């Protein structure tokens, strides 16, 4: 109980509250910039956390994530330019509402739904993390190995257009994760004699490079190919009565928000699915449940509410596999792992025992970030809208410099900058060639844990039959993983056959 109280007290510290407000504001601003997404916002924000305490750092990044998801809705609703797929669905009904002269109504329901989805998922996380961690603590190396193989299969099967490309990205991540000194023998592995590689390739630099710099290069290229564009239009928010969200309208969205929150929470807890899948499922469910499905896509606020509650609910619940099993299920959580490690915290079943005060502080900070999102989103709307008019190349080039700066700060040497530039180039190529970069990043993050589980399993059991009988979960999970890959490959071949026919 003392740990819980200490964590909550830490969350309410004035400096922590200031970082939460700063994180949410930064997230909304970056998310509102057309083409920028929440993961990019987090990758850019990671370097700013080096000087913070562990609770403030993680709370700041989660604030950026929550703000970023809502910020994405601003660009989608006002100028129909979503930064990611999940926000694209917000634009389906949000943009028609803006065109009908009701942009404030769409933005308000989007904010309320986002905060409600966040709150629901955070409560589920808080209530389920400890029991799940206790269950996870009973797992030995064979079970961890099975869970990781299944998670790899699940993520590889779901993300990207081709299972073969997903497997390649995973294998590349696993291979690069072996760089450094061997955990058992201390022998060099793929270091090529470079001293800086003895500790392995720095995770934060890899994350910033693949996630942020890679995306920045892709977006700058659009301007390179399109030439100088027109200046962005200045957006005016209306102030008329018809543009205000009324109580009956809000009440009419309650079911949509609840459905979206439940769907988002379930989807977020499964590694690899992410906000886009949650948004699609929530939008589809809302449409099926509606008495007027034909009106979806023409400016129905229930559509905005369902999508926004679902994609924000993913944020809290994506921390469930991270905090209980140590498995990051998305690009964003992979980056948050980096932030945890920087501050000496290893996510996984032991985290509540070893860093209980930090985790309970984090839980309290999550709830505080929701309140901050609600207040800042309401009060600062006119201010955030101004960022839609800032030319994108100016922001992208500054963000690129921030990536480079962050790499230097995180590694303390020019070598880190070299890593960011190299992995930025890799991130660009992975995107251009349709290899799922998220799978690469998850393979890289989980590579050392996977290898340790594999080696411990082999050390403990030299007889496969004994291993299978004493730890039946391992063969079950391996079989499930193989089945998932086979099903995904079959499902992804299907459209190809149709095209060929």
């Amino acid at each position, binding site marked *: 109980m003392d740990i819980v109280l200490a964590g909550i007290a830490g969350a309410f510290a004035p400096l922590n509250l200031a970082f939460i407000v700063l994180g949410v504001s930064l997230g909304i601003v970056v998310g509102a910039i057309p083409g920028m997404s929440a993961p990019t916002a987090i990758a850019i924000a990671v370097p700013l956390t080096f*000087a913070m305490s562990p609770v403030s750092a993680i709370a700041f990044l989660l604030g950026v994530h929550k703000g970023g998801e809502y910020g994405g809705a601003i660009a989608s609703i006002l100028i129909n330019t979503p930064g990611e797929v999940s926000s694209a669905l917000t634009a389906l009904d949000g943009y028609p509402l803006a065109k009908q002269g009701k942009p404030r109504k769409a933005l308000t329901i989007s904010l309320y739904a986002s905060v409600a989805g966040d709150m629901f998922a955070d409560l589920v996380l808080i209530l389920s993390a400890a029991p799940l961690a206790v269950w996870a603590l009973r797992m030995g190396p064979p079970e961890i190995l099975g869970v990781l193989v299944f998670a790899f299969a699940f993520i590889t099967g779901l993300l990207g*257009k*081709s*299972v*073969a*490309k997903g*497997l*390649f990205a*995973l*294998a*590349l991540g*696993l*291979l690069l994760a*072996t760089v450094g000194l061997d955990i*058992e*023998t201390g*022998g*060099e*592995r*793929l*270091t*090529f004699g470079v001293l800086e590689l003895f500790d392995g390739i720095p995770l934060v630099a890899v994350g910033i490079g693949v996630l942020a710099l890679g995306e920045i*290069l892709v977006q*700058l*290229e659009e*301007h*390179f*190919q399109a*030439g*100088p564009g027109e200046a962005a239009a200045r957006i005016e928010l209306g102030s008329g009565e018809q543009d205000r969200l009324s109580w009956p309208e809000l009440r009419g969205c309650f079911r949509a928000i609840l459905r979206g929150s439940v769907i988002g929470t379930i989807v977020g807890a499964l590694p690899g699915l992410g906000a886009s899948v949650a948004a699609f499922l929530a939008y589809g469910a809302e449409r099926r449940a509606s008495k007027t499905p034909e009106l979806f896509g023409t400016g129905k606020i229930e559509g905005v509410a369902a999508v926004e509650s679902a994609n924000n609910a993913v944020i809290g619940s994506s921390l469930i596999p991270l905090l209980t099993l140590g498995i990051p299920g998305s690009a964003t959580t992979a980056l948050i792992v980096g932030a945890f490690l920087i501050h000496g915290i290893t996510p996984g079943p032991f985290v509540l025992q070893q860093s209980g005060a930090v985790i309970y502080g984090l839980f309290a900070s999550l709830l505080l970030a929701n309140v901050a999102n609600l207040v800042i989103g309401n009060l600062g709307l006119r201010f955030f809208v101004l960022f839609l008019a800032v030319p994108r*190349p*100016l922001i*992208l*080039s*500054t963000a*690129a*410099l*921030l990536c*480079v*700066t962050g790499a*230097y*700060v995180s590694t303390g040497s*020019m070598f880190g*900058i070299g890593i960011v*530039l190299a992995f930025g*180039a890799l991130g*660009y190529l992975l995107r*251009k*060639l*349709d290899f799922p970069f998220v799978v690469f990043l998850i393979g890289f993050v989980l*590579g050392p844990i996977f*290898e340790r589980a*594999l*080696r411990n399993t*082999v*050390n403990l059991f*030299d007889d496969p039959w004994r291993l299978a009988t004493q730890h039946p979960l391992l063969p079950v999970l391996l079989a499930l993983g193989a089945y998932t890959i086979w099903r995904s490959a079959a499902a992804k071949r299907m459209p*190809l056959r149709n*095209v*060929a026919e």
Partner: protein
Amino acid sequence: MHRDELIVAATLVAGGLLTIAVVIPRYVAGGAIGGGLSPAFMPYLAAALATLSALGVLLQSLRRRDAGPEHARLTHANLRFICGSAVVLGASYALMISAGYLIGGIVLVAGLLKLARVRALPLAIAAVTAPVALWLLFVVLLGMPLP
């Protein structure tokens, strides 16, 4: 183009085989402790998986010869951008080492804005203000050293 994906997949297969045959034997110290796995096991496993999946990509692209436009491509415009950005990133990296953060930062921001075809005045303003602002933030406000 379909040819691009074939070239990429073939290069990845060749790279995977090279890693298995040359890189891992030469750059991974062997010798396990007791009856455990060798330190080279995991690199071999990952490289083998990468090679096999690259082979899968190659076979897939061979099979979908007539399957329409849905495959990855690197056009001449992409290659021009890659060359341009490589020059900008390389030059700014070299300048950060030799002349410091501010000069390297100015070249990075200016170069990327030039690639994005931003006009001269906003380019000049952003190229100077962004590095200075970040330098002030990290060095003065957060007390973190920069090159």
